[in-house]
């Protein structure tokens, strides 16, 4: 291990410091991984064997549903249970300026008093689906750093930003009485990914009705399987948080007992490897065809309507293969 670490240079030293509990090394490793640097890849390679311990929990729901406040409140509850906590809070990158205002910490700053909680904000940097491009890898870094629970708070997701469900062991979907009726909830996507449903701001009018509707839906959808629990919270006052933490932990226990945890992790690994391979192939394709002008030529032909986009894509791949 030591020899290997020396061979890896800076990344090796960084990984060792991280594993020894150095929070600054953890922060830097996340930066390198988030930026997709070679050093980040090396660090992750060294850290990967130390992952797999953390329970990963996705928190998703509409804008203003209270995800950040709920995540903060959950972290407090988990700390009472002596779990160390990592939080990845994702906010959107502006598609126009490439800038981002990351404001999830506002609701979590109290947690910074506790060295066993590590909060990191990430911008989506053009990725769709409610997560940032390297979210899964950043979660792995926090996992390697020994966090017992790593929560992933997505951007305000509407109806099909369900990427988080394939990245986390347990997915919590947060709804509010102001978020529309049960027909909204019946639409594809966000409901199906929920392992735990939360009606936050449950002190607002209409909460009881929404809870009743959701319970009816989950009963109907369960078809004999265990029903998705529907819980009420008022995150700003800490109400219902104990029950929520119980439900999240119960879900993880069920996953582990049934063997689903292993199956899901296998499926996740498959998706992750294929996604990275796809990413890498695309990168190579663009690099190869851009440098010799093929990309411009083929794209131009499509714009002039001389070539259809499907044929163009085929030709691009052929050009890259020939140019290698």
């Amino acid at each position, binding site marked *: 291990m030591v020899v290997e670490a020396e061979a890896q240079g*800076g*990344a090796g*030293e*960084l990984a060792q*410091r991280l594993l020894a509990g*150095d*929070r*600054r*090394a953890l*922060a*830097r490793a*996340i*930066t*390198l991984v*988030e*930026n*997709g*640097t070679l*050093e980040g890849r090396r660090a992750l390679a060294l850290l990967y064997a130390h992952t797999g311990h953390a329970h990963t929990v996705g928190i998703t729901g509409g804008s203003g549903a209270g995800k950040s406040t709920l995540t903060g409140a959950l972290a407090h509850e988990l700390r009472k249970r002596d779990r160390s906590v990592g939080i990845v809070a994702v906010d959107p*990158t*502006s598609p*126009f*300026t*490439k*800038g*981002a*205002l*990351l*404001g999830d*910490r*506002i609701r979590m*700053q109290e947690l*910074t*008093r506790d060295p066993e909680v*590590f*909060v*990191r*904000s990430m*911008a989506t*940097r*053009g*990725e769709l689906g409610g997560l940032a*491009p*390297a979210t899964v890898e950043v979660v792995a870094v926090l996992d390697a750093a020994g966090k017992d629970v790593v929560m992933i708070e997505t951007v305000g997701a509407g109806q099909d930003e369900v990427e988080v469900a394939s990245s986390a062991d347990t997915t919590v979907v947060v709804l509010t009485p102001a978020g529309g009726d049960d027909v909204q909830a019946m639409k594809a996507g966000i409901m199906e990914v929920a392992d735990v449903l939360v009606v936050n701001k449950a002190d607002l009018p209409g909460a009881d009705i929404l809870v009743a509707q959701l319970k009816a839906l989950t009963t109907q959808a369960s078809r004999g399987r265990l029903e998705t629990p529907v819980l009420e919270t008022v995150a700003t006052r800490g109400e219902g948080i104990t029950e929520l933490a119980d439900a999240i932990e119960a879900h993880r226990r069920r996953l582990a007992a049934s063997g689903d945890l292993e199956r899901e992790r296998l499926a996740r690994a498959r998706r992750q490897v294929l996604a990275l391979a796809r*990413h890498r192939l*695309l*990168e190579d394709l*663009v690099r190869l065809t*851009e440098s010799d002008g093929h*990309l*411009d030529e083929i*794209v*131009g032909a*499509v*714009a002039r309507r001389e070539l259809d986009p499907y044929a163009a894509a085929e030709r691009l791949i052929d050009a890259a293969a020939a140019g290698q």
Partner: protein
Amino acid sequence: MLRSAQHDNDTPRAAASSCHVSRIRDIMPVTMTNERPVRVLIAKPGLDGHDRGAKVVARALRDAGMEVIYTGIRQTPQMIAEAALQEDVDVIGLSILSGAHLELFPRVVAALKERGVDPGEVLLFAGGIIPDEDIPALNKLGFQAIFRPGASTQEIIDYVRRWTAERRAPVGSGG
């Protein structure tokens, strides 16, 4: 290039229609290019709740293409330093209107050092109601630029860009 024209609505549209190849590059994740966004922490230490200025600056830096972490009002020096550590920011901007800057800024710098964050590696700047006579002390502490009422957001953007451009070359080899 594009970014400097932040209030020019024609620029993005013109770029979008000009060249398909550049659009393909645009939709690729940032991580596939060498460029990475500057990360900035904007924080308000102390007890004054006047956050308009901090929000205007946060928004301006966001519009200039930076990733801005805003932590809200009434932050202790420890909370600010811890956020700076966890977020691994390049730049820290403090906004203060209470007059307690000589009290609080040294404590922010001390809290950063306590956490192993070298204030020399991070760009520190401040904004707010800060009298002339206090500026040398703040400069000495590492706050090279103090933006006071009347400063334009463009000045702040230019200042942050200049500093990061000078610093950027070795980035990625940290640790």
